[in-house]
């Protein structure tokens, strides 16, 4: 089912890109339009194949057929969604709060919530990772990352 969704979105994107490319000069639009058409064809084939596969599976299983979409365990979904949200918050927080505030928090939150290691392990991980990356990228390579809030 997920494949069908991805293929449908790709068809939409390809149609949009085909339309956008129509305004470009001939040489500039040639390859994007050609690729858009091929992508639409391949995505359509992928949808047809997936529908046929699902139909065959349903026919083979008969009445015992399960749902079309198998959802993962709710616990895992929660961890996944929370982690993805944390990634985006971290990317947003670096220029706002600075590397030295955002990074320890990025590391601490999942480690404290999921406790894969003890408190000592959490402390060592946060200090070691923040320190080593600071040492290599910011001190050694002079990366202009804001270090503190407002920096």
């Amino acid at each position, binding site marked *: 089912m*997920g*494949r069908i*969704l*991805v*293929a449908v979105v*790709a068809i939409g994107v*390809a149609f949009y*890109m085909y339309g*956008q*490319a129509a305004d*470009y*000069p001939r*040489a*500039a639009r*040639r*390859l*994007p339009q050609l*690729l*858009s058409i*091929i*992508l639409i064809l*391949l*995505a359509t*084939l*992928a949808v047809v*194949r997936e529908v046929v596969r699902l139909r065959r599976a349903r026919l083979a299983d008969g009445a015992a057929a399960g749902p079309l979409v198998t959802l993962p365990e709710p616990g*895992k979904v929660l*961890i*996944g969604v929370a*982690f*993805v949200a944390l*990634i*985006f918050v*971290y*990317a947003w927080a*670096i*220029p706002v709060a600075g*590397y030295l505030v955002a*990074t320890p928090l*990025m*590391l601490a939150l*999942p*480690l404290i919530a*999921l406790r*894969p*290691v003890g408190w000592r*392990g959490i402390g060592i*991980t946060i200090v070691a*990772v*923040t320190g080593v*990356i600071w040492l*290599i*990228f910011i001190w050694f*390579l002079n*990366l*202009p*990352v804001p270090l503190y809030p407002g920096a």
Partner: protein
Amino acid sequence: MPESFLWIGLANVFVPVNLAAIVGGTMIGMVIGAMPGLSATMAIALLLPLTFSMEPETGLSMLASLYLAAMYGGSIAAILLRTPGTPAAAATVLDGFPMAQRGEAGRALGLSLTASLIGGTISAIALLTIAPILGRIVLNFGPIEIFAVAVLGITIIGSLSQGSTILGLFAGVLGLLIGTVGMDPTTGTPRFTFGILNLFSGVEFTVALIGLFSVPQAIRLMLKSEADREGRVSSIRDRMLPTWPQFRELLPNSVRSSAIGVLTGLIPGTGGDTASWFAYNEAKRFSRNKEAFGTGHPAGIVAPEAANNAVVGGALVPTIALGIPGSSATAVLLGGVMVHGILPGPTLMTEYGDVTYTLLWAVLFANVALFVVGLFFTRACVAVTKIPNRVVGPVIIVLSVVGSFALNNSMFDVWLMLVFGMLGFVFDEVGIPTPPLVIGLILGPVLDTSLQQSLLIGQGNWLFFMQSPIAVVLLAIALLSILQSTPLFPAIGRKLRKPREASDLGDDLPGSRE
């Protein structure tokens, strides 16, 4: 000229900073490879930004050593935890873990290290021999042939990638389409940039790589439980190096498996995992003691380990000679080349010959470094295998964010990396292969430029491509590679067989010659 580059490359490898990069890359690769679930591709992608500040030959030596060492590192987790550190080490689990459980973890790792040295050295020699020859042939290629090579690259990778051909090609074409974002090479028209200045130079390939290979991996590690690490072997107490009679015994198997690895690596779209299973099956087929396989048999460790390290040299041949990466790891390595402003393609062996030949020699010397480092540090790597997945996940994210920012000192790249990370995760979850997408991203600009140049020369006539016999052959192979994986091909085969069978039958019928 190539001969002089050969010696320049050799001299470059012995520059202390390059030797240090080889040793450093080897150590990092071994550690990352030993962590279950972390692939060589991800390791190279994460370290790419670090090499940005280095000289091209130093950075590339480091990345190539890392790639090679990660292949061996994968066997550490496979042997001790029954969890392959990299997909290429999956076959090693079958005999490596039972041997370790018998209290011979050191022997198993020593066999893996020795086989890796043999496989890696043979593949490096093959690379040093084949790549320059192929490179010389490619020098005669014009835009038509380069266009055909790019088409062949994407179709082969698409049709050989895991899952269905349609999905492989779908991912490849999507990569090519994303590769057209930015200024058009002929008219300078900004395409799909939506007024964002950062997109005018196109989608930063390295940023996409970091996102596609690191973020999905980090999310997966957070979702994994640690329960599957029950029964692991937590220490190495016995001798690692095989004795001379043991070495002699494993040599034929290592050489055969290395040849399998090199040949598998040469085929775009196949990688260490394919080679190691192929070599394992062949070792079993050639063995007089077939039933010993799966119970901790030395040949079952030697075969996959020699093969997966031999893939490195094989896969680098099309990457260096043609600028067409054969696997996701070599695609990332090619990204390392592009980070330094070096364009992939035939010029790699000429204009940038000094850098390319340094890379070729570095692959050879990285095998020696791996053997030495492996002997001293494998025991230390046991500690790495004990790090929980949920500690590694957030660390990968921090490295990805800082690394993608480091490329252009731009937060836009960080957001772009995250978008590709999410795309990669969705693709992984629904079973669409990501390597063709990456290779499409590399080949997009190559395809675009060569197509436009060809059509300019041919005055817009598409049949111009049929004037070059090389292009015709390459495009025909590309078409065949697509057709062979569709239901159409077997149907044509059946149809062709039917009349022949009918005529064979007909020959025996009385009066049929009339």
